């Protein structure tokens, strides 16, 4: 895959790529003066009596790459899905840029649509549309959600497909592509809407290790362009080497959060140590 010229966040009013890169270069000094792009206040979610998210407070700066790791059932995926209201939280606030939603009040359709417009999402199982060509998969939402013309949408799609190394697959159907290719198409599809933040829900868990690598390469490249990313993952090397921040979750709570190298190499909490030991012992 060639990582030649990257036109990623073109036309985004809220943040230029330079800003994002600057923020990334010095997250500690410049980051504090900046407003967080994503802010969660006391976010909670219950299924019946079961507490899935227990008052999560979280801030993500523009350009930050946050990896969320932790045991299954810890609420990592639910947290991700609450950020764009795929699952509505039942308590707390979600703020993305200028949009703020109160979980206690029922969210209107236009509010949700505004919120989701700034969030791109990549799923574990890709969820491409099997009856459309790869190109159509990437172009459809640009036309329907952003009102781009077919021509402009297709142009942008081809740009993104070559970025993920799949321009030659444009006229194929997703079923003809490998899992790794499908996930790269799904990334291009999400990027096509020029989101401010990209959410990844275990993007490599459904892939064998080799195919996972090509997806991780695309994600690493994306991180380097200054895209704000929240990644739920079991890929420890991605968490340690690509993300700026690592957050460990267990039982619906944040156990530990900090700069990735610190958390991964020198965890402070006993629960984190236990989890990382279990991962390394495998």
């Amino acid at each position, binding site marked *: 895959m060639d990582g030649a010229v990257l036109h990623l966040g073109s036309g985004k009013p809220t943040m230029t790529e330079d800003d994002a890169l600057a923020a990334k270069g010095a997250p500690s000094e410049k980051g504090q003066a900046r407003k967080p792009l994503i802010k969660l206040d006391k976010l909670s979610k219950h299924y019946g009596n079961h507490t899935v998210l227990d008052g999560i407070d979280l801030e993500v700066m523009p350009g930050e790459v946050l990896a969320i790791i932790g045991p299954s059932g810890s609420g990592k995926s639910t947290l991700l899905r609450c950020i764009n209201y795929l699952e509505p939280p039942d308590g707390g606030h979600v703020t993305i840029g200028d949009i703020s939603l109160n979980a206690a009040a029922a969210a209107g359709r236009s509010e949700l649509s505004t919120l989701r417009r700034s969030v791109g999402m990549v799923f574990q199982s*890709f*969820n491409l*549309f099997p*009856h459309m060509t790869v190109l159509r998969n990437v172009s*459809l939402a640009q036309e329907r959600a952003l009102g781009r013309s077919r021509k402009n949408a297709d142009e942008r799609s081809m740009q993104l497909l070559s970025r993920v190394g799949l321009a030659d697959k444009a006229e194929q*159907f997703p079923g003809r592509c490998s899992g790794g290719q499908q996930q790269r198409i799904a990334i291009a*599809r*999400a990027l096509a809407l020029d989101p401010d933040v990209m959410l990844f829900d275990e993007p490599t868990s459904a892939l064998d290790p080799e195919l996972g690598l090509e997806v991780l390469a695309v994600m690493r490249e994306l991180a380097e362009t200054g895209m704000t990313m929240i990644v739920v993952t079991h890929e420890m090397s991605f968490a340690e080497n690509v993300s700026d921040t690592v957050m460990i979750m267990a039982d619906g709570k944040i156990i530990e959060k900090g700069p990735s190298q610190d958390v991964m190499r020198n965890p402070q909490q006993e629960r984190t140590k236990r989890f990382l030991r279990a991962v390394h012992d495998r």
Partner: protein
Amino acid sequence: MSTADLFAILRGLPWTVALTLGAFLAGAVLGVPLVAARQSRILPVRFVAMIFIQIVRGIPPILWLFIIFFGLGMSVFPISPFNAAIAGLGLIAAANMAEIYRGALASIHFGQWEASLALNLGRWSTLTDVVAPQAFRVALPSAASYLIGLMKETAVASTIGVSELAFQGNQLSQLTFRGLEVFALVGMFYILLSLPVAWLSRVADSYLQAKVAR
């Protein structure tokens, strides 16, 4: 049997075709709002649609035709035998098609809905661009076999005097006293009618399968 006899039976053919297509079209169209109601988020709407479908499917077709033609037709508003048959069979087809659509919708992976939400497609686009084309492909074989079933079911219209195939056959057998040959011939016509439907369904299915290749 003379050619005149053959033509007598043939006169029923257009009526059978018209009944089949008319009832099927009515059912295919009316099945859409019916399945929408059946899947509605509003409980009373869902409930009414469910009861409606149960009642329509629970009563034999011949009884529906009697209810509409002899019941409503004689006491509420006059209705021709053909229109009564279209109304009755169309009603039944709508309920059956709604159930076929429901099964097809249920087969769509929830990830498709989630991706549509995350991509901000909106409800209309989600339905028309993502869900309906995939559901159509799933519904096609069941819809085709239902169409063949419906074609045979139109024979009940003979009981209220629509001069379709079975009616013509019955008339002719009473005139000629050669029931065996006459009804064998009528049966042949039904088989001949079902062949293109089965063939079309197979062709459409394999075309769609080749296109999506999964």
